[in-house]
């Protein structure tokens, strides 16, 4: 593992996100700084409303309308600061440098388009940028690259999945499709916003394993939001603790979860039912 400070995939400095209505300005995220190193897995924990999701959306260049940010966000592969970049510049690095998996798989796919075409779109966007090969060819569901990508995400019958519309797939299958699209451009960073929260318990573990395996195969670092400390403990090397928009604690997973320094971290730990053995071996790989 390289030192995250040396060659970070993502470096966030003094990030502040604020709602901009005239009635009153309010900081949703305040002065957050952290870095994610090559191939590193960083978890973000905190109660709802602590700014976890906004921080991650900002890092993925997807900050919602009506919010303004200051500070700086640098992603490896781009010399633009994401904080000041326009939509066109952000679009160019989304998918290419940063992939994202969202919390709710049921609504994450375009309901009117076959899954194969949606995956093909992700491949095509990437192909157009990196090389001329296959750049403009109209890609259909049967495209071997689409089938390969779907097979890599553990979907049993990629041919059928490619021809299906999203409503014909289960939540777990849809989340695998979203992951396939997020990694189609082989980005250096994969941002996951509670990717298993909406899934059945039995499916959660398998999707988690898949994220772990695929991120390693692609060589992507992972920024992983979860309220489930057990999941963070099993997946992440390092943990950031956000509380009311501020970064109150960060450090190696085992250290933060066994010897918490901040009151809020202690409370999160007390509220969860983390058991000893889970932490003994450190991140489970």
């Amino acid at each position, binding site marked *: 593992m390289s030192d995250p400070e040396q060659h970070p995939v993502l470096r966030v400095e003094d990030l502040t996100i604020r709602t901009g209505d005239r009635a009153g300005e309010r900081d949703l995220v305040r002065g957050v700084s952290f870095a994610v190193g090559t191939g590193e897995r960083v978890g973000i924990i905190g109660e709802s409303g602590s700014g976890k999701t906004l921080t991650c959306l900002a890092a993925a260049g997807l900050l919602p309308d009506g919010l303004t940010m200051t500070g700086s966000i640098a992603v490896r592969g781009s010399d633009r600061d994401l904080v000041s970049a326009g939509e*066109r510049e952000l679009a160019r690095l989304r*998918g290419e440098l940063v992939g994202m998996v*969202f919390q709710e798989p049921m609504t994450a796919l375009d*309901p*009117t388009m076959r899954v194969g075409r949606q995956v093909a*779109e992700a491949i095509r966007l990437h192909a157009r940028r990196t090389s001329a090969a296959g750049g403009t060819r109209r890609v259909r569901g049967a495209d071997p690259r689409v089938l390969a990508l779907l097979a890599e995400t553990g979907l049993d019958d990629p041919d059928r999945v490619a021809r299906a519309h999203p409503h014909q797939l289960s939540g777990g299958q849809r989340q695998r499709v979203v992951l396939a699209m997020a990694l189609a451009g082989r980005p250096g960073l994969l941002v996951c916003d509670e990717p298993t929260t909406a899934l059945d318990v039995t499916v959660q573990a398998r999707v988690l394993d898949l994220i772990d395996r695929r991120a390693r195969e692609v060589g992507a670092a992972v920024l992983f939001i979860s309220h489930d400390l057990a999941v963070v403990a099993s997946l992440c090397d390092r943990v950031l603790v956000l509380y009311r928009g501020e970064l109150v604690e960060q450090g190696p997973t085992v250290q933060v979860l066994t010897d918490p320094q901040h009151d809020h971290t202690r409370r999160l730990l007390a509220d969860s039912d983390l058991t000893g053995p889970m932490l003994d071996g450190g991140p489970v790989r």
Partner: protein
Amino acid sequence: MAWQVLRRCGIFLLSALAASVVVFLLLSVLGDPARTALGTGATDEAVAALRVQMGLDRSLLVQYLDWIGGALHGDFGTSYVTRAPIGPQLADRLSVTLWLVVGAMVLAVLIAVPLGVLAAVKAGRPAGNVLSAVSQLGVAVPAFLAGLLLVSVFAVGLGWLPANGYVVPADDPGGFLAHMLLPWVSLGAIQGAVLTRYVRSAVLDELGKDYLRTVRAKGLTRTQAVLRHGLRNAAVPVLTVLGVQLVTILIGAVVVEWVFVIPGVGSWLADSVSRRDLLAVQAIVLTVVVLALLVSFVVDVLASVVDPRLRTDRTA
């Protein structure tokens, strides 16, 4: 999908049948065609004789079968007011109205889709507010007023286009276009303004949806995401409104038909009602009702083509 279309076909045919019965019964009980034809001064004997001659003494079922059998062949009988066969006149009038209505709706769509999308994407910003205000203005202006204004400027003032009249397209395509341009614009611009508001709200609904964020995360810009994914998803509610508008202006075009002296179905229906020409009214109402059912059938099929979730069968 094929099964769905067949099922909707069946629904269409059954509804058309039911509608024909209702139209027939309503107008049969509304008045006595024989007395209407002879006038109020006629003797009861004369009326009774004419009733026999017109076949009105038969049972309602036989009369209905006779009427609907002829209607299916385009034979709606001969008007006892104008003494002219109704079928050919209906065909002529209908073709005029269809040209007017379809042309106007094409124009309306060409106006509404780009403006509505723009108004949605720019919502809350100056450009979006201006577009909303303009479409509100369009909604408030009655079509006949727009028509009169257009005539006074482009026909009377500038003399570029004929003020009124109709030319059959097969006879003189150029003349047809020249005569139809102002009616199309006055009807299409107003319907376009109405439709713009629906397009705007349909697209606004889609803008907040998760799948657009996923699409942007893949590397599309906001605008590309809306054009490539949002529009198709917004199309279903817009299609429904489009169908309703189309049916409404089939008859609703009557005012524009009057302003531009176009011999369409709407003005014929109004004339026939005032002349108490029941056979003609029956024929026109049946035709318009069937057209309305046909439009909603087509809208249903198109909607399930656009949105696969509306195809309920599992084999799709």
